[in-house]
């Protein structure tokens, strides 16, 4: 009972369907808004190191000062209401963002002008080379003829979205909504799927049940024992795209108010060394976690950004001797209970994670056993998401498990700037929601980041990143564990052409903005 023509329609597992909200500026917009209905200028594939793919633009160039970005837009693109798409729409979009702070979470500050039908020029106040991904790949372009009349673009629900994407909205109910093919889509012969239905699937259990029952064709959920589950249904496959590194965030900077043994770099080093990552990946990572890098980048995808190939990968087994040595050298002496102490303070650390994140809880349980071998006492604590988040942003923690999110592009600048820049941190007690929760602050790192931001030359950038990498491998404000799995499940009975291990043409998570549009216009009905 999957729609009228079975072969031409598929079902996607959405998270919560809340409000009928297709406003591309809204953070609570429905999943397919970005990428499926609205498109960006360029699209970046996070699954592998690759050149940006042009979408609504066909080219761009910076002026020498790095303050002006000229964008060439694509011809023959029509909004799904039939109006032509031009560079004016691009200029309108960026101006709208610039003058409406509430629409502007990434802090874009460019004013734009369409110099011709296919050329838009964005002008920045300062040198803004690093705004490139945000402008090109993270902003949906909206039609001027519609949005110029919208009074409050922040709260508009945009129930009948007019976009350029491969699909448009057909019907909506809070329990499911349907997109239908955009017949005027600019890319010839695409899409071939007729309808896409989004169904709310709240939990892993519900997702696995729906997959096995053949109710959904595309879902992104971490399913423990995924091989077994895939076997119990027909035509099910999955891909694993580990891209987010799981790290132990440490409140590392005593100068900014952090307290506890983890402020001692030797302790962080010891934890780093005493980890048996093989066991962690197997038990907590469910055997599907990837091997991480001490640079917090992805071995494989980011190899060309990693300065020292020798240190590209994290050690997989525990080196207790080295860990013991590091602790001994720092003056942590083993006490009678097997736990080290220094100046009367026991080497006891609390590590927080979110109640119910069972993989992270397992990391803690396993680590507790592993670290005990070198005289570190680890006390796992589980708190609600809210508390965990509040503690982490306000620095009220010692150790905290988290993962490094995706940057604006695969350029390490975004990860490093986000996690390490002094501008992105705050003293303990103040919210460091910008990302540097470890309260790390190092002038050399800050200088390297500024230098990298000032150039488009990748070799120059790599040299700056090498400096950063050597500092963080030594300081370890974030102790990498492994690269967390990202499982995406497909049903191949109704559609083919899904990303596979060998053909990772997108980061295939169903919730991933932009990429979903690429997937949906690429897959074909199964014959």
């Amino acid at each position, binding site marked *: 009972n999957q729609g009228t023509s079975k072969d031409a329609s598929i079902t996607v597992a959405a998270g919560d369907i809340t409000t009928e909200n297709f406003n591309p500026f809204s953070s609570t917009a429905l999943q397919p808004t970005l990428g499926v209905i609205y498109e960006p200028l360029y699209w970046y594939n996070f699954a592998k190191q690759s050149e940006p793919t042009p979408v609504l633009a066909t080219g761009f160039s910076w002026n020498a000062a790095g303050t002006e970005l000229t964008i060439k837009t694509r011809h023959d693109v029509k909004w799904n209401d039939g109006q032509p798409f031009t560079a004016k729409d691009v200029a309108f979009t960026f101006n709208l963002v610039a003058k409406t702070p509430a629409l502007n979470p990434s802090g874009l500050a460019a004013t734009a002008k369409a110099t011709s039908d296919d050329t838009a020029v964005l002008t920045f106040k300062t040198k803004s080379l690093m705004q490139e991904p945000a402008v090109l790949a993270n902003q949906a372009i909206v039609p001027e003829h519609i949005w110029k009349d919208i009074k409050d673009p922040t709260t508009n629900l945009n129930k009948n979205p007019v976009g350029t994407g491969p699909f448009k909205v057909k019907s909506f109910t809070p329990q499911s909504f349907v997109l239908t093919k955009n017949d005027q889509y600019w890319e010839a012969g695409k899409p071939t799927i007729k309808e896409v239905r989004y169904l709310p699937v709240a939990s892993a259990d519900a997702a696995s049940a729906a997959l096995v029952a053949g109710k959904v064709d595309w879902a992104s959920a971490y399913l423990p024992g995924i091989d077994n589950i895939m076997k119990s249904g027909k035509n099910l496959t999955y891909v694993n795209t580990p891209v987010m590194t799981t790290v132990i965030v440490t409140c590392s900077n005593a100068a900014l108010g952090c307290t506890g043994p983890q402020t001692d770099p030797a302790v962080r080093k010891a934890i780093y060394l005493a980890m048996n990552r093989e066991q962690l990946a197997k*038990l907590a990572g469910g055997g599907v976690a990837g091997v991480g890098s001490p640079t917090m980048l992805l071995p494989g995808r980011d190899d060309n950004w990693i300065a020292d190939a020798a240190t590209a990968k994290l050690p997989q087994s525990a080196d207790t001797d080295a860990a013991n040595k590091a602790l001994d050298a720092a003056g942590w002496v083993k006490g009678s209970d097997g736990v080290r102490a220094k100046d009367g303070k026991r080497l006891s650390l609390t590590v927080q994670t979110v109640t119910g994140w069972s993989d992270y809880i397992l990391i803690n349980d396993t680590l507790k056993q592993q670290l005990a071998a070198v005289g570190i006492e680890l006390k796992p*604590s589980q708190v609600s998401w809210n508390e965990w988040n509040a503690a982490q942003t306000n620095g009220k923690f010692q150790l905290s498990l988290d993962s490094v999110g995706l940057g604006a592009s695969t350029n390490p600048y975004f990860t490093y700037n986000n996690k390490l820049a002094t501008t992105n941190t705050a003293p303990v007690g103040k919210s460091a929601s910008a990302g540097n929760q470890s309260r790390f602050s190092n002038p050399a790192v800050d200088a390297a980041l500024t230098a990298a931001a000032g150039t488009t030359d990748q070799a120059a950038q790599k040299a700056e990143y090498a400096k950063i990498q050597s500092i963080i491998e030594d300081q370890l404000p974030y102790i990498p564990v492994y690269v967390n799995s990202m499982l995406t499940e497909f049903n191949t009975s109704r559609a083919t052409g899904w990303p596979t291990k060998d053909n990772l043409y997108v980061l295939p998570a169903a919730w991933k903005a932009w990429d979903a549009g690429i997937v949906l216009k690429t897959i074909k009905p199964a014959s």
Partner: protein
Amino acid sequence: MAITTEGAAQVASADGPSPVAQTRRRLPPMTLKLAVGLTIAGVIVLFGVLGPFLVGNPSTVRDIGLTGPGNGFLLGTTQSGQDVFAQLAYATRGSLIIGVVVGAITLLLSSFFGVVGAFVGGSTDEAFSLFTNIMLVIPGLPLVIVISSYVPNKSIWLVAAVLAITSWAGSARVLRGFTLSVRSRDYVLAARIGGEKRWRILAVEILPNLIPLLASQVVFAVIFAILGEAGLSFLGLGASGSFTWGTMLFYAQNGLALRLGAWWWFAPPGLAIALFGAALSLINFSIDEIINPKLRSQTRAERNTWSVKP
């Protein structure tokens, strides 16, 4: 459930049938239900008390993954090779602690607001009863959810306290109704006339008559607490970092135990709750029969017979 103040009001006038029975008059008569209930509850309590000493560390992870019962693991292992049986032992202890704590706090609070309020009377009673009624209508579960998401790093003690705070009002109301009826009984008035101190009247003349009712309220509170904790844990809001039947179920559910066919992980904690709850219910049946002796009398069908012995 069926404890109405009306039924309860009969405790005091429940005259035992014969002097022979008088020594154990206040104890429930040993019936099959009671025996089964006590046995099951006893075994579970024993398991909760002693079990943790006999099993290994329940958190120890092993590289063997999800394996079924056997190979030295009585109930198999979890996904990360943790011993399910060991977890069950600790979980039993954890859940029992919650049950006991909630039972005790409920007993204290409901006696205080129900019994003391009704006994003192006047504006104290009005205020207590108003407070009780308000606590009764304030929705418990959402309150618990919110409170427990507020408190950082919940221990089982805290979960128990939260559950108790939101659940005593019902029994306070029942107790108040009964105390009001006892308070105006002639023997209490007689004690007052005799010049007894108020606390002594409460403790010596009134409380003993409340014992069966209190017992049944506590038993209910314990069942409620254990189920409530399980429900909270299922929603991910339960005690963190300690083992209870609820958290075990939560991890089993998160690990898709049921879907992966790992019944040995999913079934035991649920069954343990069910068994323990059932045992307490069976015990409660017997307490009910003391509170309301009418429940003890026999079947109506036997009545319409003229049974002449040959």
